[in-house]
């Protein structure tokens, strides 16, 4: 019963992460999350690629559109300058005036007036969005402005202006430049003035309307919230058109990967930090515009370009969380359907192990676990039946054992009583036989004497038999008391030797004794019973030995000491070794037939030895002799008297 107390409810001892339920829930969540992440990750990547490509395509088309508008704007300026040239110069005396050594102030005023008139007429023809020129002017080969639609420009000298040298040989478009003192960017197109002989005599120039260019670039259609297009001049990386950057400086150098690549005359696209002081990462498309010597940039913030990706990613994260929770719930339900019956089974098994065999599992599902529960219940039923049967048999056996013990006790008691009662008349028979033999009732004749002796002899034998029976029954009934007290084994041996010498002489056998010199002078034991044991063994030895010798050895080994009686008698056949210590058994099976004796001697000896916590052994070889050895515990101090317990206690 003690082992059952160690049985505890098993499910409580299992760590949370090892529990079937935990594992099932985790597995289902992992399955859902991993598959969603893989599928959506791939999708997201596709979306990312596509939306990026889409953004680039959009930027590219915007850049293309702007480039076309810029070219159109330049073409417009060229056209207007050409019409000024054809209207004003071809039919007038301008070349002649420019060539003249001594120019007439009046003629200069007239030319200026005509230029102004033509320019204004041209402005009338165009609406605000196509007035590409803000000023038209004429200068001579020395750079002196002789006429201009802006009167304040007359008299200026343009020799230090960047367009001056190139303008003297061919049509020229000056890259936008920062005009010192004017605080604004300028862009000039020029056309040489050729006289009748084909000689260049001066230049007609037009100042372009950069505000118009600015408004072209500022048009942000199709660029979302953060998109912008702008121009950066190759001159000092100046920004030519307003950008998103508030308070942009005309005299600042603007740099970014896109700007620098475009200014090194490359077209392309990329993702890079933009020109701002605190750069923002942008998706950019950059074009080199050779006509303007500028970079055209179309850019959109990466964050905006990837809004779709960001939103999709957020959606997916949400989806993963929701589906993960659903998976956890489903997994939990599924896990419960498995783990609950398992737990039920475990608890039932624990209770059954604890002795409560009335436990049955009620699951009621028709799956494998249901079948397991059914089998479990059947097993428990069978177990209960078997245990009940065993219990019944146990009870029966206990009753039978008690009865048998009682019967044995009654038998022993009966035997002891009977023996005792038998001894009294027998003693009287022997006593009267003695008296008759002594002639107390008159002399007996030889025949009578002989008969009387036979009577007494048989009486004594019967008495001995009864004594032996009484002894054995008393021993079996545990009524023999072993009284341990100090005694001298040497004295005991001498006494026995003296007694047995007579017996030896009578039977013409040699008899030797030996005592281990190491044996203590005094031992503790029941001397009387030990003597009885030795006499029994020696009597048997003499009884069954016809020629040879009998020896008695007292020896000591470690914690034990012993008595060995050796003879050269007929020996004991191997099959008999097993029963020679039983009551009333002699080797030939007869009841004290050939040899005198009750057949109880060895049984008594064995029982006595056992009472002394010793053991008895026999070694024998048929026809050669036997050796009986008694081994007893070596007691040198005086222990308490050992009292045999009553039977059945």
């Amino acid at each position, binding site marked *: 019963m003690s082992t059952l107390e160690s049985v505890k409810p098993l499910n409580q001892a299992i760590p949370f992460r090892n529990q079937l339920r935990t594992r099932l829930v985790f597995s289902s969540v992992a399955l859902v999350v991993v598959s969603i992440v893989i599928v959506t990750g791939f999708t997201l990547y596709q979306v990312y690629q596509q939306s990026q490509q889409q953004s680039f395509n959009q930027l590219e088309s915007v850049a293309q559109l702007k480039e076309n508008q810029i070219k159109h704007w330049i073409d417009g300026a060229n056209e207007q300058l050409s019409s000024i040239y054809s209207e004003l110069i071809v039919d007038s005396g301008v070349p002649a005036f420019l060539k003249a050594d001594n120019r007439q102030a009046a003629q200069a005023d007239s030319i200026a007036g005509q230029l102004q008139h033509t320019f204004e007429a041209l402005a009338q023809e165009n609406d605000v969005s196509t007035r590409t020129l803000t000023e038209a002017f004429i200068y001579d080969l020395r750079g002196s402005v002789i006429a201009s639609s802006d009167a304040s420009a007359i008299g200026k000298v343009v020799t230090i202006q*960047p367009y001056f040298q190139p303008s003297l040989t061919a049509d020229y478009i000056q*890259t936008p430049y920062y005009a010192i*003192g004017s605080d604004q960017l300028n862009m000039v197109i020029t056309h040489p003035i050729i006289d009748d002989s084909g000689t260049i005599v001066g230049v007609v120039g037009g100042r372009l309307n950069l505000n118009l260019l600015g408004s072209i670039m500022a048009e942000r259609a199709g660029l979302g919230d953060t998109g912008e297009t702008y121009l950066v001049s190759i001159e000092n990386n100046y920004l030519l058109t307003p950008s998103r950057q508030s308070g942009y400086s005309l005299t*600042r150098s603007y740099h970014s990967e896109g700007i620098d690549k475009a200014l090194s005359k490359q077209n392309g696209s990329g993702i890079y930090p933009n020109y701002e002081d605190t750069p923002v990462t942008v998706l950019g498309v950059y074009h080199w515009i050779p006509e303007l010597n500028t970079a055209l940039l179309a850019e959109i913030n990466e964050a905006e370009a990837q809004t779709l990706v960001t939103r999709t990613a957020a959606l997916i994260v949400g989806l993963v969380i929701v589906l993960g929770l659903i998976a956890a719930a489903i997994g939990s339900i599924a896990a419960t359907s498995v783990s609950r019956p398992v737990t039920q089974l475990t608890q039932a098994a624990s209770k059954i192990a604890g002795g409560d065999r009335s436990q049955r599992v009620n699951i009621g599902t028709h799956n494998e676990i249901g079948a397991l529960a059914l089998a479990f219940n059947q097993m428990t039923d069978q177990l209960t039946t078997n245990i009940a049967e065993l219990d019944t048999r146990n009870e029966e056996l206990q009753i039978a054992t008690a009865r048998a013990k009682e019967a044995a006790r009654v038998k022993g008691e009966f035997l002891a009583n009977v023996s005792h009662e038998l001894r009294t008349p027998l003693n009287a028979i022997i006593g009267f036989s003695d008296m008759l033999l002594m002639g107390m009732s008159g002399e007996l004749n030889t025949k009578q004497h002989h008969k009387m002796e036979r009577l007494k002899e048989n009486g004594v034998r019967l008495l001995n038999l009864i004594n032996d029976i009484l002894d054995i029954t008393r021993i079996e009934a545990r009524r023999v008391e072993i009284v341990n007290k100090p005694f001298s084994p040497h004295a005991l041996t001498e006494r026995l030797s003296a007694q047995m010498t007579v017996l030896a002489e009578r039977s013409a056998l040699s008899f030797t004794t030996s005592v281990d010199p190491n044996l203590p002078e005094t031992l503790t034991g029941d001397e009387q019973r030990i003597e009885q044991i030795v006499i029994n063994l020696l009597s048997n030895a003499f009884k069954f030995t016809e020629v040879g010798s009998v020896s008695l050895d007292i020896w000591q080994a470690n914690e034990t000491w012993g008595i060995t009686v050796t003879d050269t008698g007929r020996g004991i056949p191997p099959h008999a070794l097993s029963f020679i210590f039983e009551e009333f058994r002699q080797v030939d099976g007869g009841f004290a037939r050939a040899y005198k004796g009750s057949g109880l001697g060895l049984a008594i000896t064995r029982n006595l030895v056992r009472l002394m916590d010793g053991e008895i052994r026999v070694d024998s070889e048929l026809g050669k002799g036997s050796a009986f050895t008694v081994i007893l515990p070596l007691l040198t101090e005086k222990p308490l008297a050992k009292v045999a317990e009553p039977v059945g206690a």
Partner: protein
Amino acid sequence: MKTVPLRSLILPLALAFIVAACGTASTTQPTSDPAANLSIQLSWSYDYSSAGFYAAVKNGHYSQQNLNVTIASGGYVNGHYVDPVEAVTSGSTQFSEADAQSLLQARADGKPVVAIASVQQRGPDAVITLADKHIQRPQDLIGKTIAVNDGGARQLFVALLKSQGIDPSKVTIVPRTDFGVDPLIKGTVDALDGWVTNEGVLVSEAGLQPSFMPFADYGIPSYNVLIITTTQMVQDHPDQVERFLKASFAGWQDVIDNPQKGADFTLAYNKDLVLSQQLTRLQASIPLIQPSSTKIGGMDPAVWQQIYGTLTNAGSLTKPTDVTSAYTMQFLKEIYPQ
């Protein structure tokens, strides 16, 4: 006598060659020499107009060229005006900032000085008015009052009027009394002769809209911040001169790319200045430093010719001199090969 196998000679020869190569390499390596100590004398006290030189020091361009350059403040030091031309000829410095007129005058006086680069490629001098006065061309100055510094400035202004066919007597020219723009703002004068980078910015800072007539737009260019040295230096240490210019130009490029940094460096040299004012003036002068179609430090022989002609005609230069030997394009050609 045994003949020595050719093979046994290869190793010693190779070793000797390597040692020799290392020897020559180390003599041509500028970094193995101690850094050359050079200095430049500024024409004015530490301010934005020399920011590129500070940047060349602070950003390590001089030390990259193995030069140890000190920048000496100019203008009035301890009550005495430091003459930058004098500073180079006396040998107290290798380089100076100087304007074209001082240089040409020194040349005419026979001093062995030469311009090697021009920090400002356009002159900042202009007739400055207020935009609402609508004075847009020199002719508009007739009958108006203009404050002009006496001396060279007045001669140039008269030259400007003459070049536009204006009788100088029809314009009232009064001498300027200070560096400020108060007379213009208060209306005591209609215009004043000053720098777009200085008086121009002052007008803007006063919250008014300035209007400019740059002298350069009327064929009167000027080089106001030249880098000059002695002909001796050019002859004896052309490599040092070239390295000095390279590093200085790199400093100026840094300032153009990041004027804020340039202003910070200026303050590091002169903490008494106001950062925002230095930044504004520096930004205003960047178009002068690198106008369109030019390289940093560049000079133009045509402009030199114009300057010489204008100064001679105006009477500012009294002695004739060979203008083409007042400057050398040698280093610019070396630095900007084309």
